[in-house]
């Protein structure tokens, strides 16, 4: 993880004074967050690989139930929980910590404050991860969805670790050298304030029975909406304008999206318990709040689409933009899908089926993970001071995970609906239900394999970057401004513009 403090290419400083000032601010901001962000991305990639292996094993077990049954640690219940926690808290959250500590100093035009606290927080978070995953595999699960890691061994590390990173970020924002807070900063502030609250409430040990179920889904739904979502939207609102060189289409819409997310989202979780033994008003409130989520979703979707409008060609040039726009579109899709799945009539069909699993992956993978990939493609070269080694590896990564998601999500969603219909039919036997699901389960494993291949390519590329490898062709992949994800018409380009 050795890295130089200098950027790969020192830009020409003989320009206007304001540009030099800009550059100086940017370089100081990047240098201050560099160590923490680099380590965060290194941890994230390790968890990405571990989580992928757990996920793949769990997926294969659904259609090969006799596979790996000799060892209790490798049984479905443990491996599946290890997969979820490794991906949500290990990969996505570590990457988000790195993106947050890198982005905030840039956006508030100052250096990261108390970086040692952020670094300590990152280490504590990952100590919690190791203890948590070991605990789950050893059979010490808390037995709560999204909160399986042992409450007393692992969870305190997340509260303290996340708190320390939050302390560093909030101190940086307090010492800012800009008057206003950009919408990305609002999202990050909110995420680091909301997360400790929902995490502590979700883990509070006194709940039992129906109340425990209600608190569990309050946490699990908000973990996606009030922790993972805000940081990913913050990244999208930063990188899309940055790469296109134009501000977002409507700043008012972006603020509307942020504040309505804050006001409506925390009410949503109870729609997971439709049909459960909870007060009807509670479920109905949640269904109504889920419907109101149309407002922030449309605000974000329209804003990001209109910012990119008539500039879609940019997707062929920037890996960051391609991954992030993929993620932003997925955000709109998963949110609209979530709104409809919250309605009782739809929920009656989809509840307890693989539609829910596909929906969760559309959110946590297609939205969150793709935005984190895009962010790392932008940030890591700036932190390490060297270019990505190979455009081909980036291209392989994108297509492996892009195709993998289609192969994963489409069959699983369709067979989940078939499963729902079959389960609603009193004349269907359970064996018939299982047979109806089988194509989706096999598709899920094939898709998961493609995703894992993509992750290995990405991890190998990151490893090469950390090792300081030089681009094979002698020039960095972005030396020429030419399409990097599709190679079509590359020959028509000359350096600096279209031929």
């Amino acid at each position: 993880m050795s890295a130089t403090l200098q950027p790969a290419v020192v830009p020409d400083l003989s320009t206007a004074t304001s540009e030099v000032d800009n550059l100086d601010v940017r370089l100081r901001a990047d240098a201050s967050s560099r160590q923490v962000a680099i380590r965060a991305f290194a941890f994230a990639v390790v968890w990405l690989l571990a989580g992928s292996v757990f996920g793949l094993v769990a997926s294969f077990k659904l259609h090969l139930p006799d596979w790996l049954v000799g060892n209790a640690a490798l049984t479905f219940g443990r491996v599946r929980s290890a997969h979820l926690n490794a991906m949500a808290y290990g990969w996505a959250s570590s990457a988000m910590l790195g993106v947050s500590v890198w982005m905030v100093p840039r956006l508030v035009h100052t250096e990261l404050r108390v970086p040692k606290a952020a670094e300590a927080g990152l280490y504590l978070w990952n100590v919690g991860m190791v203890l948590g995953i070991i605990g789950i595999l050893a059979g010490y699960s808390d037995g709560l969805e999204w909160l399986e890691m042992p409450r007393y061994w692992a969870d305190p590390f997340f509260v303290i670790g996340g708190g320390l990173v939050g302390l560093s970020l909030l101190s940086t924002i307090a010492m800012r050298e800009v008057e206003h807070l950009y919408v990305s900063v609002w999202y990050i502030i909110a995420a680091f304030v909301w997360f400790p609250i929902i995490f502590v409430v979700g883990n509070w040990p006194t709940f039992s029975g129906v109340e425990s179920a209600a608190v569990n889904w309050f946490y699990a739904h908000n973990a996606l909406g009030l922790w993972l979502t805000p940081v990913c939207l913050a990244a999208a609102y930063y990188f899309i304008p940055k790469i296109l060189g134009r501000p977002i289409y409507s700043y008012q819409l972006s603020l509307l999206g942020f504040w309505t997310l804050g006001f409506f989202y925390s009410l949503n979780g109870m729609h997971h318990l439709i049909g459960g033994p909870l007060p009807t008003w509670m479920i109905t409130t949640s269904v109504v709040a889920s419907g109101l989520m149309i407002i922030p979703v449309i605000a974000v979707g329209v804003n990001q689409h209109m910012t990119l409008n008539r500039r879609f060609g940019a997707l062929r040039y920037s890996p960051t933009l391609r991954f992030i726009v993929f993620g932003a579109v997925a955000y709109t899709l998963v949110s609209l899908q979530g709104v409809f799945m919250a309605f009782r009539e739809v929920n009656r069909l989809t509840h307890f089926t693989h539609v829910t699993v596909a929906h969760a992956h559309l959110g946590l993978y297609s939205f969150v993970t793709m935005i984190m990939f895009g962010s790392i493609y932008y940030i890591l070269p700036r932190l390490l001071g060297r270019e990505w080694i190979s455009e081909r590896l980036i291209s392989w990564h994108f297509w492996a995970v892009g195709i993998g998601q289609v192969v994963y999500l489409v069959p699983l969603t369709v067979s989940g609906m078939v499963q729902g219909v079959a389960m609603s039919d009193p004349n269907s036997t359970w064996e018939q239900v299982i047979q109806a699901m089988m194509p989706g389960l096999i598709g899920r494993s094939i898709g998961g394999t493609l995703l894992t291949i993509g992750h290995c390519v990405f991890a190998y590329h990151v490893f090469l970057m950390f090792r300081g490898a030089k681009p094979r062709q002698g020039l960095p992949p972005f030396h020429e401004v030419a399409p990097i994800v599709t190679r079509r018409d590359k020959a028509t380009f000359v350096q600096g513009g279209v031929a």
Partner: protein
Amino acid sequence: MLPSSLAVTVAITLLGLLTVALFLAAYRRGHFDRIDAQSLIPLDDDDFNVTRPWESEAQREARMAEHGPLRPAVTPGIWGGAA
């Protein structure tokens, strides 16, 4: 009715009030003023006047009219690397 919903009701109310407090603090401190200027915060001067090969001639001319002559994007990595 209450025993099964009290904890969640309190937690959601707490989060809601926190968000309301944050909103009011933001309003009082003028964070909803000068909206157009706020949208420019992530963009540095050198983000505006670099040639972007995907832009049409009309878009390029509009960029030049607003930000002056464009510089060729010769800096390695400007679209994704280490610029």
